[in-house]
């Protein structure tokens, strides 16, 4: 498997720096890490498949209760992996009036909607964790998905002169 063009053009760029940049971008917006690495089609897939459940969950649950560490700390722990969306949701949630205990509110969601919202939001957050790790791994392994690295190495050596067993881009292109 050949080195993707976006990686081969920049042999001097430190792979770990690119991995950190890709990870941070992916944390801010789903798919942005892959977009940064040049895998734009995959970035679109990640962005759609992660943003959709997040927005559906937020629409069903409402940001007041669903994106709020005071009302649901564990859910917030999962959501925080989509940093950009969760930050905006949390800021809006803080500006909404508090809901008095044992009272119905227009800002809160109740069973069964609240349950579905929680599942959607938590799943979206954890899926983005997977996307972040994938972006970091691709940045560190010259764009090859992690599980393909072992099988790709012999071909890569033959076609592109990449060193076998290389763990970073600079090492691979020596």
């Amino acid at each position, binding site marked *: 498997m050949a080195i993707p063009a976006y990686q081969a053009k920049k042999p001097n760029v430190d792979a770990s720096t690119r991995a950190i940049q890709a990870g941070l971008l992916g944390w801010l917006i789903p798919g942005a890490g892959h977009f940064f690495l040049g895998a734009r089609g*995959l970035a679109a897939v990640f962005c759609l498949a992660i943003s959709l459940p997040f927005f559906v969950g937020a*629409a069903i649950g409402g940001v007041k209760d669903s994106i709020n560490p005071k009302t649901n700390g564990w859910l917030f722990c999962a959501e925080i992996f989509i940093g950009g969306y969760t930050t905006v949701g949390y800021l809006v949630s803080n500006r909404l009036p508090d809901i008095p205990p044992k009272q119905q509110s227009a*800002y*809160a969601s109740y069973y069964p909607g609240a349950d579905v*919202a929680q599942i*959607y939001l938590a*799943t979206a957050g954890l899926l983005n964790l*997977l996307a972040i790790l994938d972006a970091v791994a691709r940045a560190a392994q010259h764009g090859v998905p992690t599980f393909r690295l072992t099988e790709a190495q012999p071909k890569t050596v033959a076609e592109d002169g990449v060193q076998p067993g290389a763990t970073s881009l600079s090492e691979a292109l020596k």
Partner: protein
Amino acid sequence: MASLLGSVCLALGDSLPLGTLFIHPIKLPHGARLWMLFPLVFCVAAVYRASRAQSPGEIVGPTLRTFVSILLGMFGIAIGLLIAHEIILRYF
């Protein structure tokens, strides 16, 4: 600063029809809870397959297969739990 940002986001959310969605939760239609499983499982399958692909063209077929596999697996778990539930009610 955070408060100001929050106010800006809230004002935007209130002024845009789409933003109001997230402030005033929409009610889930009766009986829609089970159907909500399908889009979520599809998204899980798409992300999982995208993490193993080199280009988007590679993920369409495997995503559909993973989607069906997850649904069948969850259906099997549901049947197993239902049988266990019935056995417990009947014999214990």
